[in-house]
């Protein structure tokens, strides 16, 4: 529950569809906001004349005047008033965003079908200041991309006008300059978009290099954008929206393919990846994702890293094991057969002659008087001799010296999404089990929305309780793999029907996609739970396969918490 004073917003909702209107109103009211809802543009303008709102949520297409007109007229009529947060709802995000004027006016664009969870978060954001509302210099956008009629984010030119969720409806990121890429990566939704590199310096970090565009780049861009669009659809909204860095990287992999490392001197870690995400972070995230079982990794390279600063920018050198100097020279041992003297050659050298340091005889004949049984290293600094020089690393970042044996190594591994990872991407957080499951209005079937709407209205008017339940089938995946999807679907259907029969009129059961739902009017969850227990037993008995159905029950108060 949101109960902090300043987080209570005055919200104007302009929406002609009553289902959407009721649902949004329910959610926002339950979050503690004051919501005024109207169905037409004219009504909206008249309300706006009387009252100031913090947030205006408007459908873009209204029966009378468009959402943009409402906003424009309001802003023109109140040039000095503080600017409200302007949110547009539309089924045609691309059309809306293709007009730069729209981008200028609306702070957020929400696509239909509406993501209810997102609304409650977005209304809390701060509106853009008026003077910020400048358009990107159209001159920066070149004709090349213009011909494609894409909605793109120009980096870094658009960074000031970009508000996080404008990514919705954007097709691609166009990099004009490789600056602050980490800031770009952190923008909400940046991981969902293909990156087109106009600088030519990013290599595989970007998805397409367009530094020297030719005609055949256009179909490639189109293909890339289409590919991202298509793949995005397969990803559960939970994950598309998740701010969690691991989830973001996983989603990026689902869109752009496996994470490929490559050696590159640009970064301290000596490795670059095919993503904008900071290279060091990528390695850490891959580890976490692998631990969770969502990716499989393959060895790519093992690098020595500085024990002090973890940089891989190290110089390898041979050095004296005694004093650490790299001023080394190689020479051979000389073995004088006759008197068994064996010593480094220097000890024998006298001008051009070899004189035995022990018996003072001259060594005349290689193989007869003497030979060279091996090589040794002599330090020109301290004179120490050794069979082999020591190997050490000098870190060029922090200057620290470390012996080869003590320098830690770091394995770089490339990552592909595992079977579990794909399931997680498709099923969303529900895949992680009931503990982390959250109820998502966006997933609700229309039938449920209508029923819920009715129940909510009664709760608001007469405090009549209701219970909303979601049903998750933990064993369904196994059944599907073992006996096929058809049998799994049939089992789920039979189970749900049996539950409905057992419970009779007490509940409405609605089949969904990921989950099924039930709604019980006039009952609270604790009371319902007892009844459900019995019914579930019956349903379990009826179905041959164990599909592992579990309930999560929510009271009206839970729904907005």
């Amino acid at each position: 529950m949101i109960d902090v004073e300043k987080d209570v917003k005055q919200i104007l909702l302009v929406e002609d569809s009553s289902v959407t209107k009721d649902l949004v109103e329910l959610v926002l009211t339950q979050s503690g906001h004051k919501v005024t809802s109207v169905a037409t543009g004219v009504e909206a303008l008249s309300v706006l004349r009387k009252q100031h709102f913090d947030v205006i949520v408007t459908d873009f297409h209204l029966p009378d005047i468009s959402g943009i007109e409402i906003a424009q007229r309001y802003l023109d009529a109140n040039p000095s008033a503080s600017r409200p947060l302007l949110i547009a709802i539309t089924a045609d995000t691309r059309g809306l965003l293709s007009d730069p004027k729209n981008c200028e006016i609306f702070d957020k664009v929400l696509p239909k079908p509406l993501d209810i969870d997102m609304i409650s978060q977005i209304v809390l954001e701060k509106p853009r200041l008026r003077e910020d509302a400048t358009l990107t210099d159209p001159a920066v956008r070149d004709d090349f991309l213009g011909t494609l009629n894409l909605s793109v984010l120009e980096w870094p030119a658009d960074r000031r006008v970009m508000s996080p969720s404008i990514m919705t409806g954007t097709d691609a990121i166009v990099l004009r300059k490789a600056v602050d890429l980490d800031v770009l990566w952190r923008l909400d939704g940046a991981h969902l978009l293909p990156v087109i590199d106009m600088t030519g310096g990013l290599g595989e970090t970007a998805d397409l290099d367009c530094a020297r565009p030719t005609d055949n780049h256009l179909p490639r861009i189109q293909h890339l954008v289409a590919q991202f669009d298509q793949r995005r659809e397969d990803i559960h909204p939970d994950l598309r929206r998740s701010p969690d860095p691991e989830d973001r990287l996983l989603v990026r992999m689902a869109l752009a393919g496996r994470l490929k490392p490559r050696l590159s001197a640009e970064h301290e870690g000596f490795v670059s990846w095919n993503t904008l995400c900071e290279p060091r972070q990528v390695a850490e995230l891959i580890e976490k994702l692998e631990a969770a079982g969502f990716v499989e990794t393959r060895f790519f390279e093992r690098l020595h890293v500085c024990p002090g600063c973890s940089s891989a920018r190290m110089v390898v050198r041979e050095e004296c094991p005694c004093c650490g100097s790299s001023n080394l020279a190689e020479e051979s041992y000389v073995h004088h057969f006759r008197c068994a003297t064996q010593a480094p050659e220097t000890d024998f050298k006298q001008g051009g002659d070899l004189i035995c340091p022990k018996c003072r005889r001259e060594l005349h004949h290689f193989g007869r008087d003497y030979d060279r049984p091996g090589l040794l290293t002599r330090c020109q600094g301290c004179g120490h001799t050794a069979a082999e020089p020591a190997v050490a690393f000098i870190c060029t970042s922090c200057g620290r010296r470390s012996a080869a044996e003590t320098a830690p190594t770091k394995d770089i591994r490339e990552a592909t999404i595992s079977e579990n990872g794909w399931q997680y991407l498709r099923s969303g957080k529900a895949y992680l089990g009931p503990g982390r499951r959250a109820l998502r209005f966006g997933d609700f079937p229309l039938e449920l929305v209508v029923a819920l709407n009715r129940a909510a209205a009664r709760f608001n008017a007469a405090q009549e309780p209701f219970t909303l339940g979601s049903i998750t089938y933990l064993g369904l995946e196994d059944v599907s793999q073992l006996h096929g999807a058809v049998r799994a679907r049939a089992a789920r259907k039979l189970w749900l029907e049996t539950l409905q029969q057992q419970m009779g009129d007490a509940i409405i059961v609605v089949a969904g996609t990921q989950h099924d739902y039930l709604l019980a009017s006039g009952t609270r969850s604790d009371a319902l739970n007892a009844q459900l227990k019995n019914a579930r037993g019956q349903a379990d008995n009826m179905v041959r396969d164990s599909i592992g159905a579990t309930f999560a029950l929510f009271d009206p108060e839970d729904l907005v918490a």
Partner: protein
Amino acid sequence: MMQGLDYLAAQSFGGLMAIYWFVIFFEIPRYLLLFCLVALLPRRTPATDLVDGTSVSVVVVGHSEGRKVETCVATLREQSHRPDEIIVLSDGSTDDMAKQVLALHKRGWIDAAHATELRSGKAAGLNLGARLAKGGIIIFVDCDCTFDRHAIRNIVRPFADPQVGAVSGSVLVRNSFASLMTAFQAIEYVITISLGRQAMDRLGQVSCVSGAFGAFRRQAFTQIGGFDAEGGEDLDLTLSMRTAGWRIRFAHDAVCLTDVPVTVRRLIRQRGRWERDAVRLRFRKHAGMLNPLAPRFAWRELLHEAEFLLFSVIPAMILPFYVIWLFQSYGSFAFSILVAAQFTLMLMDMAIFLIGALVTPRAPGLRLVPFIPGFGLYYGVFMRAIRLNAYIREWVWHASNRDEFVPAKVLRSRGQVR
């Protein structure tokens, strides 16, 4: 048999002398001398540790001993008196010894690692090690040796006397019970090396510092010029040092263990080499020590030379003649006579071994007693046969000049291979 014993029992003292002259001249004095010297003369080991701060270097040289070198170095690192420096050389090893040595250096276990690709021979390896060593005392050890915790402390103690040039460590057998031969060698090491050198030490007559574990004063070592290019380099260097006037000591409590040959064939080869080297060095290279007219002659060297001559060379030469003479003179009684002699010697072996085990720290002692009855045959007959063979081959054919222990290129350069 019984008749033979009756015959012996009936003999007067003079008669017994006539029969057992060999035993009485060559066997019994050996035991008596050892016993008297060790029992009657005081031990000369200084009671104090070497405290003058002289640094100690240990040089380990091995040829293809990759499996043993790590254990050897490990026991050196366990010393109560840690050597200031450990230098390991791989002399043209054909196994992974060079790699092992470099790995030990990387691990920081040793201070210098050197490896040659061609084999130069032990003497050259030791000389290179000595050249690289910085210590005032250089201890040479074999790769297959391991050391008691106080071995280094005890072997450097005698250097407190500035006239001491070299100290021999006490080498005992590690694989005593690997075979019958190793058990006999274990007994032999206790009696001849430990007890024998303790006796000679009391007389200041130690003539050989073990190549397996010997310490040298750098000053003395360089004065002699290090090892020469031939076999038996340990005896050679010690004799040279004695000539130069340095005292040689034996540290009975500086114990090192080594593996001795397990098979008869390997034992014969090892001992043959030792005996050939001993004869060559004493009677050819260092013959001047025996010649009153030579400048190297010194009366005090006569004793250990006489010991070698009397107890090693002459008995080995005479024994076959003695046995033949016995059978000619006494016919079938000769066998009983020899059995009786062996029995007497066995009792003496037992006594002397027990004394040896008593004064030798870390000796296996009682566990070796069951092997004593056979030791008389091993030492009195088997070893003498090996010796006789070695002496003849050396005198007649200069066999040591073809010794494979020294690389052919070295022998060739010394003109010893025709």
